[in-house]
């Protein structure tokens, strides 16, 4: 500002130094007028500068969001979008990023269409064309694996919120940070649940059947489940994959019914989750002790409305539930419901937390420089505040970028509602076990 004033003030100085007879006469005559004019213009300049500065819009911080907004996974993609928006609106309405003079966050969306190569294309577009300072996303593990590798090459921090495949944080990347658990940890927590509930009710589990859809989601979950079951001493008596687009799963259910396991551990997306429970009902079959889903289609409220009474007593691992005994959980649920008219899914809660983790990093880094944000993310340690609505005590990342202390809960559909039933100290009700 001062530079500008000087620049404009310069001609006045020039004229002073020029002393030709004409200018001397002219100057003598308008000396008083000149002085007035100069004073006036300086005042005007100052006024303009002041208004510009105050009315100046704070910087916009562009954050890229990768989601499947079209294609078969758009179901959940569009829902998770809501979670991001709730968080961003809250942050912006409360003054934006304080350490960057109230700069507001703008979300720039990239539609991955559920495909890794499209995801990579969109990643490039967001980073190179739109100039986002960080990326958050992207729901599907296969897309995440590809896009995080690209973000790493382009040195852009990437907060992975929902994808669970183990390898995402096992490649020694520096720019990738994952909030949610690895799928092998979910398997481990599922076994822990079975052990605990067996001890509590006396109905112990001996045999497990694995039923999973055949893409990355199902296959990586099943792998984790096989390994954990061996560790905990459970026998896997059936191991069946199926295509999530199948029109008929009767044969597989018939096989399982014949084998008669204690528990079925299922990994499905939305359509197949409904197909499985309705096929089981038609075959009048329920596993001896319980049916346990592994997030995915089972924690989507549409599962309850589409499957109706058939969904009753289905258990599933979950990363979040609205009845968690955590201060912000209920408020988040209410705010989301008020704004969008439907229940949030757990992926919404993690997306919400992810934005707050990023905000935290922006506050700490005081900059939109990607490397600085990356460093701030690495030092994240959140124990309270809006991000703390997830069922564990602290969000912090180890050197591989993985959130270290993530744990999952087990929820059960009771009376058409998702109820947290494990771990017992955060449960709101007792589990119904066996589930028949």
């Amino acid at each position, binding site marked *: 500002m001062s530079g500008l004033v000087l620049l404009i003030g310069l001609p006045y100085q020039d004229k002073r130094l020029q002393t030709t007879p004409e200018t001397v006469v002219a100057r003598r005559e308008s000396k008083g007028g000149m002085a007035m004019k100069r004073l006036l213009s300086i005042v005007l300049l100052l006024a303009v500068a002041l208004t510009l500065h105050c009315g100046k819009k704070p910087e916009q911080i562009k954050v890229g969001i990768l989601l499947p907004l*079209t294609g*078969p996974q*758009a*179901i959940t993609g*569009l829902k998770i979008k809501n979670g991001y928006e709730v968080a961003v609106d809250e942050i912006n309405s409360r003054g934006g990023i304080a350490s960057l003079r109230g700069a507001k966050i703008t979300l720039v969306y990239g539609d991955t269409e559920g495909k890794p190569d499209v995801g990579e294309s969109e990643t490039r577009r967001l980073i190179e064309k739109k100039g986002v300072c960080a990326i958050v996303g992207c729901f599907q593990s296969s897309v995440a694996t590809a896009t995080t590798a690209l973000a790493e090459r382009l040195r852009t921090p990437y907060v992975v919120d929902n994808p669970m495949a183990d390898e995402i944080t096992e490649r020694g990347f520096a720019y990738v940070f994952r909030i949610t658990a690895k799928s092998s940890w979910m398997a481990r927590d599922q076994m822990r649940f079975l052990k605990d509930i067996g001890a509590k009710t006396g109905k112990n589990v001996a045999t497990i059947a694995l039923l999973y859809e*055949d893409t990355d989601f199902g296959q990586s979950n099943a792998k984790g489940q096989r390994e954990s079951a061996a560790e905990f001493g459970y026998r896997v008596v059936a191991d*069946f*994959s*199926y*295509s999530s*687009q*199948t*029109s*008929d*799963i*009767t*044969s*597989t259910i*018939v*096989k399982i019914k*014949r084998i008669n396991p204690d528990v079925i551990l299922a990994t499905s997306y*939305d*359509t*197949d989750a*409904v*197909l499985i429970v*309705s096929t089981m*009902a*038609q*075959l*009048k079959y329920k596993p001896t002790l319980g049916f346990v889903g592994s997030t995915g*289609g089972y924690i989507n409220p*549409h*599962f309850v*409305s*589409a*499957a*109706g009474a*058939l969904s009753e007593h289905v258990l599933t691992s979950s990363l979040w539930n609205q009845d968690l005994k955590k201060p912000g959980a209920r408020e988040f649920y209410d705010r989301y419901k008020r704004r969008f008219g439907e229940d949030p899914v757990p992926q919404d809660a993690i997306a919400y937390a992810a934005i707050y983790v990023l905000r935290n990093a922006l506050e700490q880094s005081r900059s939109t420089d990607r490397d600085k944000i990356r460093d701030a993310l690495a030092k994240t340690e959140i124990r309270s505040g809006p991000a703390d609505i997830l069922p564990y005590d602290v969000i912090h990342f180890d050197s591989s970028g993985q959130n270290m202390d993530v744990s999952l809960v087990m929820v059960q559909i009771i009376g058409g509602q998702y109820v947290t039933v494990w771990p017992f100290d955060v449960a709101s009700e007792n589990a119904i076990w066996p589930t028949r």
Partner: protein
Amino acid sequence: MDISVLLQATINGLLIGGVYSLVAVGLTLIFGVSRIINFAHGEFLMLGMYLAYYVNAKLGLSPYISVLICIPLFMALGAVVQTVLVNPVMKGPQDIQILLTVALALFLQNAALRFFYPTVRGLSIRSSTYSLSVGNTLISFPRLAASIAAIGMILALYSLLRYTGIGKAIRACSEDREGAFLAGINVGRIFAVAFGIGIACAGIAGALIAPFYPLSPFTGTVFTLTAFVVVVLGGMGDFLGALFGGFLIGVCESLAAIFIPASLKQVVSFGLFVLILLFRPSGLFGRKREWLTV
């Protein structure tokens, strides 16, 4: 392998096979009459499912009543689609015709995505969970109803084609377009009617499976591919071939899923498909004719 498991799988295969037959009959009719390979066939099935869903949700009517609504509605829809979209390319290269129906499939699927949203829905009616027990095997009521209704529709269609005037006109057009024209048959209108009937078959099948099959805009593709396998198996344009082929494929897929991982069962279908196309292109029943055989 337990015999009861095999028996259950066979029964299930037969039940879903009835629906496959209905869908395939529609496809083969369209092909037999106008030589169009309708890649969008499954999408009309999906639309039939959504129709049943919304009729049930808004008007409280059972999907089996939706079937009655489907018939005139989808016939009209089919006729319009044929006249507006398919007709202009009928005289052109076959590849363009294929591409047109592929484009139509893409359009319909994404229109459904846009207007019905990708949320998966279930249509539950009282009879959705009924099943009959015959010894050790369970026969699910909605599947049985779907199968029986499908067979009924096929038989009705068969009688129509075999014994009525319009049926004869359709067969004439399929055997010899120009000859039929010269005989005074309005060929354009017959094409539209045939297309309409074919689409109606798909739509009806959709309404029939709605009570036990989860709805989503992407349901159509799977049925399109299966319908192709059935049609090829039965002989393209062979009506009865499609009928028996549907049951055969239903049972084969069901049994195959017992022995191999379910996600690979489609490989069996495709393998069969290729073998038949190569070595017995006139279909298993080998009635060597290129037009609609009834």
